[in-house]
């Protein structure tokens, strides 16, 4: 996931165009990875690029959807009658770093906002990227390895009253994928894709090369009006014009006010007014929820779970996030780690993951058993499940030639970033020290940590951080450990498997590739997977039908309602 903040689309030609070859594609993706908005105290996950999903014909057939909007699970709105009522105030843990400039930002906060204002071609109400549901597209069909046809919904209008047509899809996809001559941030998770408008309600997407994670890309690509895209970008920055259930009425730096779109194609939302507001402090968010000044709050930290659970008025919506919180070794900083697999394994055996998830992280967190997060496509649990085994760790350390645990190394943790990160790292170092390892904790904010990771004079050897994704293994891994990724060990096997996975459109073959990759990584242990983190929204019990998904931490208020 990339973020581009305040970017005005004036970027110069970066000199390198995408090519067919997978490695080059990955390098390109890597080069576009960036422009990321990172800040302390935001719970944004530094998600990587979107996965390459190969959609097989069989799958297509399976998920071919009918025309009838009423059958779709999302199109329930206020169809059962009644005017939208009430107001929902949602307190976000993450600042709104970006503006509304389409495809120029991939801040998590911006995706979550876009979801309320814009519609997408497909919807993934279960969070499973292999199970699309209709949204602006009523059906889809893969024509060949590079060509996809979508039937579009009829009678949809933008907030400004203009009718939705295939031209809008064309403008949107071509812009987002980088096919038109405009450089956008989203292009980093696409391959250039041209769109042929067959008729008003039929479009054909043609990817420049076989592109596995297409659905993952569509998951992130809101459909913007062609007229808007052709006009001045400046107005779109402040006045998003979507087809979604809400329209933006106030655009303040830390507060976004939205009004119900009474003409929404699936029926008007049942909540009249929605306010998204950034509140940095978890205790303040909780207080507001308890005092009835907010109806939903973001990122409930573990220590507050019990308070909400035990409350008569409040409840939790919790999922296991598609992100793995790892201890990431930074290659090139700590020689022992770079050269000794035994040492790496010894570290893996020195951590009590179960205790961490049971006692510290709590919620829906689960012990990590693969480099591909649970909930993502093609996830396969690996063995052995590393546990805290001091004897084995010490044995491995001796094998690595450092029975005393080796030299001191820096372990960085960002405060206010991941839930209870500091405690987790303190606990980890405690157990590491028991086997003789000598981690030295450096606590900083996320900005300082990222600066240290990527600058040449950084000093950290290991970082406690996570990278979230939409749910495709390509996104979870390619830019981290692919060629050019800072976490990459230049392992040729890893690189070629990643390239194959992105370019493969057949799900089974793709599955095999990622299976092999997961096994290989588990064996090499280039980094230390810890757990799949918890994503929990707290809200009043009066708020029903709230959709909380692990993919990009989607929090969708349609067709939720406030009960009296």
């Amino acid at each position, binding site marked *: 996931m*990339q*973020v581009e*903040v*305040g*970017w*005005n689309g*004036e*970027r*110069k030609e*970066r000199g390198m165009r995408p090519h067919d070859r997978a490695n080059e594609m990955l390098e390109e993706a*890597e*080069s576009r*990875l*960036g*422009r*990321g*908005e*990172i*800040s*302390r*105290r*935001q719970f944004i996950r*530094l998600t990587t690029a979107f996965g390459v999903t190969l959609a097989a014909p069989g799958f297509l057939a399976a998920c071919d959807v009918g025309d009838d909007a009423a059958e779709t699970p999302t199109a329930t709105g206020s169809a059962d009658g009644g005017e939208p009522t009430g107001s929902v105030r949602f307190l976000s843990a993450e*600042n*709104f*770093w*970006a*503006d509304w400039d389409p495809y120029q930002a991939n801040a998590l906060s911006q995706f979550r906002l876009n979801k309320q204002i814009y519609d997408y071609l497909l919807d993934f109400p279960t969070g499973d990227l292999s199970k699309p549901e209709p949204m602006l597209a009523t059906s889809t069909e893969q024509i060949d390895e590079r060509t996809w046809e979508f039937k579009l919904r009829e009678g949809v209008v933008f907030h400004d009253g203009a009718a939705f047509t295939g031209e809008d899809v064309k403008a949107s996809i071509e812009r987002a994928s980088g096919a038109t001559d405009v450089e956008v941030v989203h292009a980093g998770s696409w391959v250039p894709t041209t769109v042929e408008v067959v008729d008003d309600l039929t479009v054909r997407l043609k990817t420049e090369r076989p592109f596995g994670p297409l659905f993952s890309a569509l998951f992130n690509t809101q459909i913007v009006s062609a007229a808007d895209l052709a006009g001045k970008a400046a107005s779109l*920055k402040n006045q998003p014009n979507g087809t979604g259930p809400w329209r933006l009425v106030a655009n*303040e*730096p*830390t507060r976004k006010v939205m009004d119900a779109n009474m003409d929404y194609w699936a029926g008007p939302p049942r909540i009249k007014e929605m306010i998204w507001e*950034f*509140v*940095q*402090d978890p*205790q*303040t968010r909780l*207080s*507001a929820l*308890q*005092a*009835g*000044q907010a109806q939903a709050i973001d990122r409930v930290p573990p220590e507050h779970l019990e308070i909400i659970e035990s409350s008569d008025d409040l409840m939790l919506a919790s999922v296991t996030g598609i992100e793995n919180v790892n201890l990431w070794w930074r290659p090139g900083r700590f020689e022992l780690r770079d050269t000794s697999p035994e040492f790496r394994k010894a570290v893996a055996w020195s951590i009590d993951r179960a205790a961490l998830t049971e006692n510290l992280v709590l919620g829906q967190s689960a012990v990590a058993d693969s480099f591909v997060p649970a909930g993502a496509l093609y996830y396969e649990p690996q063995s052995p499940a590393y546990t805290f085994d001091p004897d084995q760790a010490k044995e491995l350390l001796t094998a690595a030639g450092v029975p005393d645990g080796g030299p001191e190394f820096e372990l960085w943790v960002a405060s206010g970033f991941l839930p209870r990160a500091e405690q987790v790292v303190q606990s980890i170092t405690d157990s590491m020290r028991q086997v003789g390892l000598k981690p030295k904790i450096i606590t900083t*904010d996320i*900005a*300082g940590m*990222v*600066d240290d*990771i*990527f*600058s040449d004079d950084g000093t950290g050897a290991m970082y406690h951080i996570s990278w979230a994704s939409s749910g495709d293994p390509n996104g979870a891994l390619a*830019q981290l450990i692919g060629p*050019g*990724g*800072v976490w990459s060990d230049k392992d040729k096997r890893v690189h070629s498997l990643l390239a194959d996975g992105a370019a493969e459109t057949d799900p089974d073959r793709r599955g095999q590739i990622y299976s092999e990759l997961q096994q290989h990584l588990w064996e090499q242990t280039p980094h230390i997977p810890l757990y799949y983190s918890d994503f929990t929204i707290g809200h009043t019990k009066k708020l029903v039908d709230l959709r909380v998904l692990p993919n990009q931490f989607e929090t969708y208020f349609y067709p939720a309602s406030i009960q009296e």
Partner: protein
Amino acid sequence: MLGQALRRTAQMTLVVFGVVTLVFFVLRLAAGDPARLLNQPGTPETIVQQVRERLGTDRPLLVQYGHYLADLARGDLGVSFHGGQSVRDAVLEALPNTAALALVTIVVASTIALALGIAAALRPNGLVDRSVLVYVAVAQATPAFWLAVVLVLVFSINLRWLPAIDLTGPKSFVLPVATLVITLTPVLIRTVRQSFLETLSEDHVRAARARGLPERRVLLVHGLKAAALPLVTLIGLQAGFILAGSYVVEFVFNWPGIGKLTLDALASRNFPMIQGGVLVAAVAFVLVNFVVDLVYAALDPRIRLRAS
């Protein structure tokens, strides 16, 4: 009088100038490269460089400083690094909220301080005095953030009497103001008590009594007017501080003021926004103290008349 005004203005400008300069350089020398921080990990140097160009942080420090001052002279505070909103608009939007909070706090705090301070001074070591001093000692030892949290817990969550956060109406003022008042009053009460005690021991108060003036008049006209002077100075300083940084209170109560604005900006290394927030705080500080000087002069003829 004109010369005096010019002189004061020059002094104030100098102070504000010093403050913004300090912030400018502290941020740029200490806070790292915002372009790097704004970009996702692994971003190629070329892109980072473009961001630097866009933000203007690629230029030599002194050139940046010159541009900053030139913009400032035109009243342009720049645009936010995130989202491109005008810093001036953001600051001007936040300012009234902080000012309202400060104003209410000052009125409440000085009223309480006058009442308690005088009550304590009238009978030194009496029951009232001792109770007030206990309050002063305890209130002074209470961390503001801790107090704020406890107040919210009791009055908003358990009793549900008052809003926990935000500025939504008159009720919203109660808890933030209470927090600030409890942290402010110890100083004010001590000052009032002290200056009242001092005034009461002055010759002219004794002389007023010797002339047979009623005790109430001695206290309220002769004592209070002279005792009010140090309070005015102190309140001025306090007002400056509240305006400049009720950071904790705004943070805890999600109060949309300058303090929260600045803290949020600091968290995201949003230099223009931080600079804007600090600038407003510094200007507020010097202005308030200027006003205090005027009030002081109005109250004290010795200053008013000698100056003219």
